[in-house]
């Protein structure tokens, strides 16, 4: 019984997602963005994740990597994950991004979920776990006042659900600044794409 009470307290005081109001917001110490709509935010092992309908449906991720960092953290210490290198060109960053998406495995099991069992790592994996990744339209673009690049991508999730995405990034002083938005091709990607493009064009680099 005491154990249950402790659990109740734990749950009561702790939520995974916090509110992001529609205003200018710092992303780490390097830049800020402004959104016209409110989002829910979670921290996903070093990546800041924003969503409105739930990360399995759509998610905007803010990533800042240094030389040698992996895009996602793995629970498997032995796993060889692709690493960002400061000498990468934008098209090599795209290669790194694609290889990283492919390296995510696992996901949500509805049967386990209907028993109330799910882990944040499964939710993250459930929204990626990609195959058939196709990148198009890699082009130069502004990341605030920094020179950067923009690309479109599409992929299939583990269950064969089609997903789409856009990304804006910049390699600055040896670090990769990347904003990636993806959602289900049917309905959810389009639902908030405009809001995300607005965020992309609102980047202000901290002096």
């Amino acid at each position, binding site marked *: 019984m005491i154990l249950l009470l402790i659990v109740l307290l734990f749950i009561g005081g702790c939520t995974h997602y916090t509110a992001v109001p529609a205003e200018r917001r710092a992303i780490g110490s390097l830049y800020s963005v402004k959104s016209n709509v409110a989002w829910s935010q979670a921290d996903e092992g070093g990546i800041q994740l924003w969503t409105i309908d739930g990360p399995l449906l759509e998610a905007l991720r803010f990533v800042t990597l240094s030389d040698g960092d992996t895009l996602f953290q793995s629970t498997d210490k032995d796993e060889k*994950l692709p690493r960002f*290198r400061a000498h990468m060109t934008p098209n090599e960053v795209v290669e790194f991004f*694609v290889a990283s998406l492919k390296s995510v495995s696992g996901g949500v099991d509805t049967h386990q979920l209907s028993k109330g069992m799910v882990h944040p790592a499964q939710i993250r994996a459930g929204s990626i776990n990609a195959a058939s990744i196709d990148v198009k339209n890699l082009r130069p673009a502004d990341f605030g006042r920094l020179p950067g690049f923009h690309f479109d991508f599409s992929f299939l999730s583990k269950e064969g659900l089609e997903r789409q995405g856009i990304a804006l990034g910049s390699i600055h002083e040896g670090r990769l600044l990347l904003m990636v938005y993806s959602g289900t091709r049917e309905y959810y990607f389009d639902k908030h794409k405009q809001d995300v493009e607005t965020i992309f064009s609102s980047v202000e680099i901290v002096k």
Partner: protein
Amino acid sequence: MKRFKFILVFCLLCAVCASCATPRGTPGAPDDMQPSQRPDASSDEAGLWMYMDRIESRLKTSGRVVTDPALNAYVRQIICKLDPVHCADIRIYIVDTPHFNASMAPNGCMQVWTGLMLRAENEAQLAYVLGHEMAHYLRRHTLQQWRTVRNTSTALAFFSLATAAAGVGFAGSLAQLAALGAIFAYSRDQEREADEIGFEIMAKADYEPVQASQIWGDLLAEDEAGGKSARSIFFATHPTTTERIATLRNLADKTAKERSSWTAGREAYLNAIQPFRKEWLHEEVHKGNFNGSMVLLNRLLKDQGASAELHFFLGELYRLRGEKDDCENARAEYEKALQLGNPPPEVFRSLGVVCLRMDKAKEACDSFEEYLKVNPDASDRQIIESYINRLR
């Protein structure tokens, strides 16, 4: 009373060790799968089939299946050559993933992963692996495995492995899967039985027996080079040691004497996979397993001779590995590819990137320009133009 106890203990042991020595013909051994046979609806086998049917229907719409009619027809004719009696019950799925694996589910769903097809050097090698898997199917080894594990705590993981190994929900963390696979590995007796039946099937179809130990020897070498984190799911579920490969070799020598000429089917095989090799090599080098992939590419170069395609991808491995001297190593491979003629057009882009890294601005610029000339419809044209503008 003593005798009764002994029988009881023996029966219990048999029940516990269901996957142990119950080869064909021994009392209590499962019958061979008969053509068009379906299990009784209330049996545990039927439950297993139902799960496998679900996995199969998900696999069908997963977008990970290679549907090319010619390639599928080619693999299908190998299966029917191996076993004309059962081939009507077998549904083949070529799964697009750069890992070596083949498997057969109890319901007749066979998977061949493109990583396997990239590695086989001839039709006989592919045929052997497929024949080996068919032996597991004919002897119902998966059902035996299920019966052994279902009374243990690892049983629940059985279906997640089946799902993962089905290529659905599988995209990485091979080490995790391999660890899981080790729990459900076929027993040594099951492997021995599959080897023997695989050989029977292969020999009847005229395939050269020595190719069996050849393909597994090659795979083992690659696996060892790749290190712990690149452990293969195939080897996790099919315990393979150098001793077993030696046994396979002896078996091959014995079988080989039965006939004067055998088929390896090298040309037919290389022709069949030619349209797909570039894509499969691309997936392979981007796996991030540089050491393993290098062993593979060097073996293919040795077996098939110099090719612009293979040298280009070897260059890609160096470029992606990015260790000391790798820029130079990559550049050397790209130059070889160019000399051999007709390289993949991406070679110019990659050459530009490594020259950039080596601060050779003019050469980088020239390479990028050549890339755009050769690739007028490049989807990354705009970014490459921006590199050229910055370099000028």
